[in-house]
Every structure is written in C-alpha cells, then in structure tokens.
C-alpha cells in the first residue's frame, strides 16, 4: 500500500494535468462517483460531520491500528473531496493519519472554498477523522 505522501503526490500530479476548472470539477465528480456506496444505516447523526455546509458522513472502523473509512455526501463536489480523503487515508496506520497535514488541498489550485475557515469542511472532516484515528490502537 502506498503511503499518504505518495498518494498525495499522485493526486497533485493528476490535477496539474487538467487544463481548466471545469475539467478539474469533472474529475472530482468522477472520483466521487467511484466511491463505494455507503450503507444507509451508517448515515447516523454521530457519523455526520459538524461544520460542513453539506451533509457529510464518515463511518470509521479500526483494524489493528489501521483506520478504514466509508463516507458519503449529498454534494457531488464534497463527495469528490471525500473520495480523495478515503483513497488517501482509508487503511492507513492511524498514527500516520494523526500526523497528516493535507495542505495538498490548498495546492490543488481548485477550491479556495475548501481551504477557508468554515464554508468548507476539509478542516472539519480532517478533525473528525483524526479524532477517530486517535482512538484506533494496535492491539
């Protein structure tokens, strides 16, 4: 399995090859489409991330110190972001997740929307996932 920085580099590369913002959103929405469907029963209030303008759900499962993530959003754009987060983080050692900084989102050159304080949710989503990672120990 690739490390978080390796996957990050790949995403940055991918996005850099896209010419204009329409193509970037296209790709993002494609990424969202490829996200495995999240079972409805996992879309609980507990799994809803606070601080996002759209509904975003994350369900996490800990297996021997690795965090596995299922996710969904009713916004296709946010679902694309969520898909990137899942590809990046799901199955990674929880300690790596705890230390990930994900400034990548700022360099994708796409969504100032996503890096700003509250409108976005990248910060909120990461906080949510890091909290899950913090309780996920190797046993």
């Amino acid at each position, binding site marked *: 399995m690739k490390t978080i920085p390796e996957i990050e580099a790949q995403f940055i590369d991918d996005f850099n090859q896209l010419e204009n913002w329409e193509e970037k959103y*296209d790709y993002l929405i494609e990424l969202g489409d490829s996200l495995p469907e999240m079972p409805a029963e996992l879309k609980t209030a507990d799994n809803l991330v606070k601080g996002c303008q759209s509904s975003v759900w994350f369900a996490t499962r800990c297996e021997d110190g690795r965090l596995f993530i299922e996710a969904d959003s009713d916004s296709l754009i946010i679902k694309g972001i969520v898909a990137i987060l899942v590809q990046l983080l799901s199955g990674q050692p929880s300690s790596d997740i705890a230390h990930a900084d994900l400034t990548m989102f700022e360099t994708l050159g796409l969504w100032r929307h996503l890096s700003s304080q509250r409108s976005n949710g990248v910060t909120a989503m990461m906080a949510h996932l890091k909290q899950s990672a913090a309780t996920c120990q190797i046993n």
Partner: protein
Amino acid sequence: MTKSISSARADFPILNQLVNDHPLVYLDNAATAQKPRSVIDSLVHYYEFDNANIHRGNHTLAIRATEAHEAARSTIAGFINAQYAHEIVFTRGTTESINLVAYSFGEAFVKAGDEIIVTELEHHSNYVPWFLLCKRKGATFRVVPFDQDGELDLEVFKSMLSEKTRLVAVNHVSNSLGTVNPISEIIQLAHQAGVPVLVDAAQSVQHLDHDVQALDADFYAFSGHKIYGPTGVGVLYGKEKWLEEMPPFLSGGEMIENVTCDKVTFNTLPFKFEAGTPDVSGPIGLAAAIDYLIQFDPAELKDYETDLLNYGLELLSDIPDLTIYGNPKHRSSILPFNVAGIQHYDMGVLLDNYGIAVRTGQHCTQPVMDALGITGTVRASLALYNTREDIDALVNGIKRVQRLFRRKS
C-alpha cells in the same frame, strides 16, 4: 430631480471587478448589500477629520463627531418616520436589536404562563431569542405555520392571540422565500388583542414601505449592512412608551446618570440602551447610505425592483428541472430555487467560477427548510444596482452548470 436608477451601478466601486476572470455578478444582497462610494467616503471623512469620543467631550472634534452621530440618528428617525429621534437605538444589527428587546422587554413584561408568538418563516435571529426567553421565563413559544405558497396562516395566528400573549415577533419579508407578510394586518390584529408587535425589517426596510407610524409597529429592527450601509451597525426603533418602561440591557459608560457605592441611576433615552463608547462611525455611514437611497424616487425604485424580480422568476421558471420555492402573492427581491440533481452547495460553488455570487444552504431559517423538506436552496437576491443582465448571467450560469453535470451522468 430624482436620481435615475440606471446611474446607480457606477456608484458602487466593488461591482467593477473580475471574479474568476468573469465580471462580478453580485446576487447575494439579502446577505449583505454593497456600499456606494458616498458611504465609504463618509467613513473616510469621519476618520480623517472628526474622529473623537462623543457626547461628553467639550473640544471641537468631540462636538463635530457628536453632531455627526446625532444627525445620523435624526436622519434615520426621519427615514422610518419615527416620532422622536430618541426612539432610535443604535445596535450592531438586527440580531442585537431583537436580543435587546427579548432581554429587556422580557425582564419587564414576560412571566411564566405567558405566550410569545413568532412565525415559522423567521430568521433564527427572530426565533432563537424568543425561544430562549420563553425557556428562561417558563413562557410558551408559539409558532405560526406557513402554507405551501409560503404564506403565513393568519387563521392560526388569530386563534393563537389571547390575553396570555405578550408579544408578536414577525418579519416583514422572509429572507429565505421573499414572502411579503401582511404586516399591517398582523399588527392590527395583535393590537386589537392588546399585544405589541416587533417587526423584523432586515429584508424590507431597503425595498418596501418603512413608515413605523403608518405601520404602528411597536418595535422595528434592521441592519445597516443590508441597506447599503457599513457592517456592524443596526437600528432598534421602539415606541417611546415601551422604551421608557423597559430596563437597560447592557450597562457601563454612557448609559449612566449616577453611580455611587450602593445605587445606580440611568440616563434618558436613547442613551439608556447604548452602553459604552458607541460605534461612532457606523451610524454616520448608515445615514450616508440613507441619504444615497432617498435620492431615488421610491415608487420608481419599487417598480424597478419588482420588474427585475418578475423577470428573474420568469426566466428561472423556464429552466428545466428547476424548482422555485414559494408562490406568495407578494414577493420581494428574493429568488429561492434548486435544480434537480445538483446540490445547492455545488450550484453555488460552480456559479462562483463564472463570477456569480449567490448564497446557498439554509439561510439561517432551518424551520423553513424543515417545513419544505429540503436541506437548503440556492438564493439569488436583488438590490437596486442589479440589472436584467445580471439575471441573464445567472440563467446562463445555471444552464452551464447543468451541462457540466449532464456530461457526468
């Protein structure tokens, strides 16, 4: 000679810019309006020539600043036709105005078993303060529902009014649907039952009639930033008799008459409600905004804004898969919609890439969204500087976003 509406746009420096390589199309006016040059200039002038702490100073700057600040109070009193300038209390905005009444009127007049009536169309700022007041006092919080057209159910309202009712708090225009509520009728009904009415005029004062004496409003609240004025200043109008009977809200400098170790007495109106150094420049900027606005002929302005809204409603309703929310008899300046298959957030983000600024989400009216069974809307909202070209740009933008999404499915 009144000013022509077509000359307005050039007065707003911010509108003359590119956003994401497109000319800015600003359709988020219900959230906040832009400021004409004269408002910005009034702030600069204040800080470059007159700035001083007011009311108790004896030096020239303090006197000039006091005069400008109090002249602003008179301008605003004149604009809404208050009987006395001292019925105008400066606040940070509609929200603080309403909180002031909820605390102070609440302390004086609301007790366990009493009732407060609001509506399901209210902004959180005219909902939560009353909800919390009722919780604090053990009073009952009653909510008038709206129907599928987005109109308040006046029969339910009438049936709720009783000798237990202490206050009715209602907006003149709903910020999420644009419904123009029958505010005069509501006030009359309430007054027949002996109940005072607070009007949340945040979305109406800049577009519709705003004569507080004609309306016979007991309290009237609005925000400067939505009527082309600066951020951080708002107005609470209250009839003198209510303001006199209400205890102070915030305390400290300015609102004090006398302080000794064991007794404090309060200043007269409006200062009783204005503790601390006020935002001196805010009201000055707000008065400049009002001076700007009253250059236009009010009837002409209303026609222009109505025409623009109708143009928007017409064009939007021609777009396939687009739903417009509400169908009230009278609507003001607000276009709320969704497009099937495209979440409101996504629509907002993508329109922004074409330089089009709209608002998306719940618009601080979760009860409205819950009643409609949706998570939010896209809201385009109009101001006097908007044009048919802005509407055309919006419609084109929506169609392009639809094409983008269609490619994907």
